């Protein structure tokens, strides 16, 4: 687990740092996608979650879901291309659970990647996570979670 400026960033996940999104590769090769704790802190309390439909194919860096808070609305972008396998009904019922538990119960979509080997090389994982997010927080002028 990396912790940068008070934000938890598990280093076993794969991140698109610019888009502030994480992916967990499951044992069956599918992916679980979510927002980072940093993204949650920037957004504030999330009040709306509108994912794309199960079965829809999503290009890399295109939106898998739209989230709204009282002060912000924006997309959560797919770190790699793939087909949406599942959306999170519990999050739909209680969007604030994204903030409360961003890396577990607050997951956003499950994805079947179409080109994991080719596209995952651009994601950050392991020991590079903390350095990459520290640089982003510096660039963003982010005070901390």
């Amino acid at each position, binding site marked *: 687990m990396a912790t940068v400026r008070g934000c938890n960033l598990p280093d076993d996940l794969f991140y698109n740092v610019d888009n502030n999104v994480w992916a967990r590769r499951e044992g069956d090769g599918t992916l679980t996608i979510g927002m980072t704790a940093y993204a949650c802190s920037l957004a504030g309390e999330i009040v709306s979650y*509108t994912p*794309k439909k*199960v079965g829809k194919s999503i290009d890399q860096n295109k*939106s898998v*879901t*739209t989230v*709204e808070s009282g002060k912000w*609305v924006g*997309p959560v972008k797919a770190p790699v291309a793939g087909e949406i396998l599942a*959306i999170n009904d519990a999050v739909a019922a209680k969007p604030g659970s994204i903030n409360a538990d961003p890396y577990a119960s607050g997951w956003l979509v499950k994805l079947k990647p179409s080109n994991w080997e080719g596209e995952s090389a651009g994601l950050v994982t392991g020991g590079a996570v903390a350095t990459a997010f520290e640089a982003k927080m510096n660039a963003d002028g982010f005070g901390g979670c």
Partner: protein
Amino acid sequence: MGEEHYLDNDEKSVVIVMTSGPSTAHRCATPFYIGSILASMDSDVSVFFTMEGALLAKKGVADNLTAMKGGKTILEFIRDAKIAGVKFHLCKPAMPGYEIEVDDVIPEINEISNASKLADLILSCDKALFF
């Protein structure tokens, strides 16, 4: 929303014609917010500032205007929309009447456009919204 809470549609192109301005500040935030949502859903969104809406593209106006007391400034709404991917056009024919020079235009504006551009956007888009 009803039972279904997921998004089931193909991406669209949307043009938002922004005619409201400082005299109706309460009408000036929502168009940018809905633009942000549409862009976040991967729609191709353009906002065209015309009539009194052109004033929102003048430096010093949107940053001193709120739709609600104590709320975010209109410039913040514009910037959020820009980050979400919304493109901004300013109506060139409206500029002289509102005393807007090119140097007065906020940097968020992508293009100063003639009325023919607005006509083209309207004719080619899937949805046109007027505020």
